[in-house]
């Protein structure tokens, strides 16, 4: 599978990819703690962006509540660890199952009753909001006061409990981003991937060509939810604290979807490129506004918004398609 994918990648892109990966693999040896922490965020957003892109970019289903699946993954794995002493690797399948089950409920409601487009997006927001309010009142997971993971259990780098230093999480996040990329690339070129594209382009025509639209859409939600929940598990054990008001917030959902939109919807490099642009941009703006003494709340957000407007205006289809043209990477050929 990977061999065929490699063969389908133009040589120029292959060289660029290999170079980038090498730089990222040795980066922790040279970069300081701060840069490493920013890169962890970049990888994380690339990962969850890839997960969201399966639904929106591939299958054309707008989810504005993806914080739900990420948050469920985070809460389920963290609660199992804190309350029952079940480690994250054992908790991972449970977390995935929980997200997939909720995803199935959202998908079934949406597709069974033909809730399409923006109305489907509203449905996803509604589910995320219900989760936020629900977890606010769920005492077992700490309610609104939050859920905290013990920062270190003595030994330090105990990887089986995901208790490690920044470099440990750096490689973990890098691995996640790479796995998601390869998985999505494989899916994109699979029969299921083509069916998703057909449904995205024209559900009626897809149906006439034998595509079971309900099943294809459902598969997109389930795959996306499962991937997102794994991102949530990472999030919980990296930050060690969870609050419903942040974890399930609409703002978090928006944050998740910006990278793939800016990078290029439906493309494989879009979420990665978007994350590499937006996360450092956010950090840079924090540093700049602090230096300039602009401490009024929201200053950073204003400049961030301005930058987004500029990027979207210059590359309306995303940065990756525009860059691809510039670099002379040819379209995929049949």
């Amino acid at each position, binding site marked *: 599978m990977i061999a065929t994918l490699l063969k389908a990648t133009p040589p120029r892109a292959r060289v660029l990819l290999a170079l980038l990966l090498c730089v990222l693999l040795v980066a922790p040896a040279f970069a300081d703690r701060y840069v490493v922490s920013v890169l962890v965020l970049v990888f994380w957003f690339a990962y969850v962006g890839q997960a969201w892109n399966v639904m929106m970019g591939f299958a054309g289903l707008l989810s504005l509540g993806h914080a739900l699946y990420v948050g469920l993954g985070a809460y389920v794995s963290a609660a199992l660890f804190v309350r029952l002493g079940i480690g994250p690797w054992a908790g991972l399948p449970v977390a995935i199952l929980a997200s997939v089950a909720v995803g199935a409920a959202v998908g079934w409601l949406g597709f069974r009753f033909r809730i399409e487009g923006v109305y489907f997006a509203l449905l996803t927001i509604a589910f995320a909001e219900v989760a936020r309010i629900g977890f606010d009142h769920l005492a077992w997971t700490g309610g609104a006061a939050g859920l905290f993971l013990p920062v270190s259990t003595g030994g330090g780098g105990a990887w089986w409990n995901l208790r490690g230093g920044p470099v440990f999480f750096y490689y973990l996040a890098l691995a996640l981003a790479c796995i998601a990329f390869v998985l999505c690339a494989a899916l994109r070129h699979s*029969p299921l991937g*083509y069916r998703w594209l*057909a449904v*995205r*382009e024209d559900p009626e025509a897809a*149906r*006439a060509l*034998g595509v079971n639209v309900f099943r294809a859409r459902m598969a997109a939600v389930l795959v996306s939810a499962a991937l997102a929940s794994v991102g949530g598990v990472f999030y919980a054990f990296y930050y060690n604290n969870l609050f419903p008001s942040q974890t399930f917030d609409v703002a978090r959902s928006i944050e998740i979807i910006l990278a793939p939109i800016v990078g290029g919807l439906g493309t494989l490099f879009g979420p990665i490129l978007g994350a590499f642009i937006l996360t450092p941009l956010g950090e840079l703006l924090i540093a700049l506004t602090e230096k300039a003494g602009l401490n009024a709340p929201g200053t950073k957000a204003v400049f961030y918004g301005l930058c987004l407007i500029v990027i979207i205006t210059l590359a309306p289809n995303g940065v990756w398609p525009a860059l691809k043209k510039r670099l002379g990477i040819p379209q995929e050929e*049949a």
Partner: protein
Amino acid sequence: MSTLLAVAGVSKRFRGLLAVDDVSLSVADGEIFAVIGPNGAGKTTLFNIIAGVYRPDGGRVVFAGQDITGLSPDAVCAAGVARTFQIVRPFPGLSVFENALIGGLSHGGAIAQAREAAGDTLRLLELWDRRNQKAGSLTLPDRKRLEVARALATGPRLLLLDEVMAGLRPTETDRMVAVLRMLNRERGVTLVLIEHVMRAVMALAGRIHVLHHGATIAEGTPEAVTRDPAVISSYLGTEALG
């Protein structure tokens, strides 16, 4: 020849309008069958009933001995019935090849098999040279051909063609007629076509079914139907008499 498609007493009502009124027809395996009639006669509605888009209010659709009445469009396609849309619906953001490939996947989903089916039908419809072009950038005649190629890639026994000649120039019509005849003769695909271009209908169809206001007014060979006074007054117009 055995019957491949049997439509028995099918009706469809939209609010007050009776779009298809108790229509029965039967198409033999290997036949080329045309459905003609003025605009609004219910031709496309009839296709949509056969293809599973609409569930008829009454009557049955039987394909190859299997009752397909009320099946979903994807299930009808899986049973071996492919259709094209009157207003072409290519997947605009995908390449011509990917468009055909998606049709090819209906065989059961193996990519290699789908690629083969896609390549085969694109060559047949003379779209192979444009395979890497985005479907949205094609000209109308090419889109019409893609519509046929894509439906054909599903490997149908019966192909429902909804006005594939409309908007084509006479030379292009002749090419399409040649391709369809080849499909029918060499590959044994049964064709049912809705068509206004009488030149194509006369060149292809073995039998013609005429609808008017949702009801059948005539059926028979091209020669018989074009001489039928009811058909002439409602559809062909008096000039056809000359």
